[in-house]
């Protein structure tokens, strides 16, 4: 074999191409094979099948509702991480942080608005997605368990939104969470204890703010990501999106 291929000069000459090839690992082949490799050779795309049924692409079938919910979740993670740079879970500082976002931080208002409206929209779209799955009978075998995961995801979404609701520490937040957590206290026998566990006390205060903050930025997002992973994985294991039986 030629030794020139390994000379330093040659290496530098082919540097861009070699770096690119080491990252994307394309084997070549027909155009069809190239496109297939683009999907399964990519860590971020490999949740997709290489080929997808035409029915799954019909906008009028899914309206993209589940995907919209997922995109809103991504937007919420991105905007939420940025908000974390400006937020302190303290009853003294939380509300002042809100005012700073409004008047001091560049585009702070827009950042908070994006997070707030995406959160409301995600609750709505997750519910609409559930309606779509119901009305198309997509929870029938073999997709029963994915429906169960989906119901759990809806509950996690509601709880994520609820815990985030307290964080601005304004009157709206404080009394909404007071009302919401009082509903939990109606549980017979253990109601008061459940509320105490949730709030870290009998009333909404510093402990409640800290608990809601930790649930909102760490625990619940983690649960949501894991459940989403299972939800998406099961779509493929259950044979892709549902479609008419005789198809």
């Amino acid at each position, binding site marked *: 074999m030629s030794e020139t291929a390994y000379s330093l000069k040659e290496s530098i000459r082919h540097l861009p191409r070699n770096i690119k090839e080491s990252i994307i690992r394309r084997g070549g082949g027909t155009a*069809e094979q190239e*496109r*297939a490799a683009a*999907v399964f050779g990519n860590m971020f*795309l490999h949740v*997709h099948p290489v*080929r*997808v*049924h*035409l*029915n799954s*692409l019909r906008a009028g079938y899914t309206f*993209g509702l589940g*995907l919209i919910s997922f*995109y809103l979740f991504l*937007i919420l993670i991105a905007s939420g991480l940025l908000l974390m740079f400006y937020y302190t879970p303290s009853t003294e500082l939380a*509300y002042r942080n809100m005012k700073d976002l*409004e008047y001091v931080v560049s585009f702070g208002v*827009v950042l908070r*608005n*994006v997070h707030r*409206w*995406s959160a409301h*929209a995600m609750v709505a779209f997750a519910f609409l997605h559930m*309606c779509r799955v*119901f*009305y*198309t*009978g997509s*929870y*029938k*075998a073999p997709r*029963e368990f994915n*429906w*169960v995961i989906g*119901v759990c995801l809806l509950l996690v979404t*509601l709880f994520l*939104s*609820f815990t985030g609701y307290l964080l*601005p*520490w*304004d*009157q*709206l937040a*404080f*009394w*909404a969470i*007071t*009302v*919401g957590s009082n*509903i939990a206290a*109606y*549980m*017979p026998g253990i109601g008061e204890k459940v509320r105490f566990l949730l709030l870290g006390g009998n009333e*909404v*205060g510093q402990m409640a703010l800290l608990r809601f903050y930790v649930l909102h930025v760490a625990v619940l997002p983690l649960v949501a990501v894991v459940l989403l992973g299972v939800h998406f994985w099961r779509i493929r294991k259950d044979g892709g999106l*549902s479609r*008419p*039986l005789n*198809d």
Partner: protein
Amino acid sequence: MKAVNKEEMFPKDPNKTYSLMAIVDGETFNVEKGPEDTVQSWPHLMVRELALFLLVFAVILGVSLIFNAPLEEAANPLHSTNPAKAPWYFVGIQELVSYSAFLGGIATPALIVLTLLLLPYLDRNPKGTGVWFSRDRRVATALFTVFVVVMVVLILIGQFLRGPNWHLYLPWS
């Protein structure tokens, strides 16, 4: 169509219930088509997904540039707002609580969640899968629609028609 007699090539077997009747010229159904009506995910699926993401992001950004998220005065545990309302998705439950604390606040939500979790194990008839509002599932469709409408109406009442002390008020009064 052109039928060709091949009887001498494929003699009829008296022990079999089937036999070759004719050979017909024509195309099979899968010519120029992927297996089982599929297309490549790249680009057909992913281009659509990307377009949808851009749309969602643009809409959220547009809304956020126009409407500000609500921010009231700083929280004051000594001075309650009247009425104090839960977040909109729980206002329907709050409306039920105003009729009966246990039935509305605990029993009904628990029943709803339990029914949703068990639904695919209770309704197992595969007929009508993959079709919107299938005629084979009229009862299920009707029941679920009643559930959705009741939820939405309760939320609308709680959100827009309830004023101080949870009395009925019209939105403009």
